[in-house]
């Protein structure tokens, strides 16, 4: 139902997530943001079971902020990813596991950009590109084919658009718009949303003007 994607370049990480918040068959919201800002250069993308996502992601977010307040410097992306994985693992074998799938993207001033893939079974892998959701089945091979480690930001954006077009063509569900953000040494920038299909509606989805 939900879709996350991340592509790491030599000095940036491009991430995108769909904007649909659904409840059984109904789209409750068309402009829902699934990215949580952990710090100036770390983003956590979180999908999964309805309440678990926000609860878990906000918990991680506040703890990363607390670390910064206590110690005066921010956690690196790798440290934040391992902290997140540890929390997932601790709750995995309890009676209340958190069923969330995560992508953590960040830029470390020393190590450069990093993209971390995390699972609801608390697996952790640093990867050059990653995707979550049913859409991942359709788009991972596109990423395999066209990804190269030294791609530019524009090439990464084109690759992202290829993936989204493929979703629009073959995925059974309608995901009309995607939030896109890029993290580099200057921090997190929000790029323009990628929309497919929604532009063809006569009436745009109702939102406060």
């Amino acid at each position, binding site marked *: 139902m939900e879709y996350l994607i991340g592509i790491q370049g030599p000095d940036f990480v491009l991430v995108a997530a769909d904007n649909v918040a659904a409840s059984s068959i109904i789209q409750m919201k068309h402009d829902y943001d699934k990215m949580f800002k952990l710090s100036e250069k770390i983003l956590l993308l979180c999908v999964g079971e309805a309440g678990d996502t*926000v609860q878990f992601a906000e918990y991680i977010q506040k703890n990363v902020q607390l670390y910064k307040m206590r110690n005066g410097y921010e956690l690196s992306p790798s440290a934040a990813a391992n902290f997140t994985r540890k929390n997932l693992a601790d709750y995995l074998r309890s009676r209340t596991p*958190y069923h969330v799938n995560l992508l953590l993207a960040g830029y470390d001033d020393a190590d450069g950009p990093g993209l971390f893939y995390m699972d609801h079974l608390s697996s952790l892998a640093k990867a050059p590109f990653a995707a979550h959701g049913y859409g991942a089945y359709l788009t991972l091979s596109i990423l395999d084919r066209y990804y190269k480690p030294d791609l530019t930001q524009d090439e990464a954006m084109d690759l992202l658009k290829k993936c989204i077009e493929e979703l629009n063509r073959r995925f059974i569900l309608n995901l009309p718009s995607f939030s896109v953000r890029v993290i580099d040494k200057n921090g997190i920038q929000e790029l323009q949303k990628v929309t497919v299909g929604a532009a063809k509606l006569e009436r745009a989805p109702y939102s406060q003007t």
Partner: protein
Amino acid sequence: MFGNTPGLTCARDTALSAFRFYVPAAEYLEESPLQFGQVSTSAQISSDLFSTHSGDLSTPSLPSVSSQPVPLPFPLSHGTTTLAFIFQGGVLAAADTRSSCSGLVACPAAQKILPIHSHLVGTTSGTSADCALWKRILARELRLYQLRHGRRLSTRGAAKLLSHMLHPFKGTELCVASGFGPCLFYVCSDGTRLQGTLFSVGSGSPYAYSILDQGVEWGLTVEEATAIGREAVYRATHRDAYSGNCVDVYHGLFSRRSLRRCLSLQPRS
């Protein structure tokens, strides 16, 4: 905190548990609302109604339930249609008034839009008892917040508080509510909390959504908004077996920040 009032013996020291009139009001008032309603499986807490227990508020642990989630006694459904949306003239909420009980109309004049305080109203769906209970709990916690901090909790904060209070009851489909003040939130017992401009909840919600998506715009007048809200609930009551009877419509203005109940009409039939 009850002090040494002359002439009164302190009842807390008696061994007779049946006569323990000591109410730990201070501890109760400071008890976190997030701890409310958690079913305790451990034998630490005694069964005495007024026993004191140390408020364990300092451990920074994840807000997960410490006990088994309460299983449902029977399958529950949300037999209702409620909706709310924001437009230039304020906020409009509408709901049907049928309260059903597995095929029987238990009450044809139930009130599903519950005022929580003068600036906040919740529409509810799910089991009526749970909705009434949580409305009162939320009203109590908001009032306590107001007394402790000297200001009213915002709608966003009230939605977050309700969402966290419902978290231990995840999976029981307890109550699905959308409350508003000057803004609109959808809160569900499965943990969803969304801010938006148009929501509809309940078994009749798909039917209501289709009518609302046709006609709701920002620039509606109050009369037009009332009409489309009423029409959406009416169409939903026509198609959905578990929604019916009358339509309650509430309208709240941004400027004059209080809510009034507009009308309670028979649907056109």
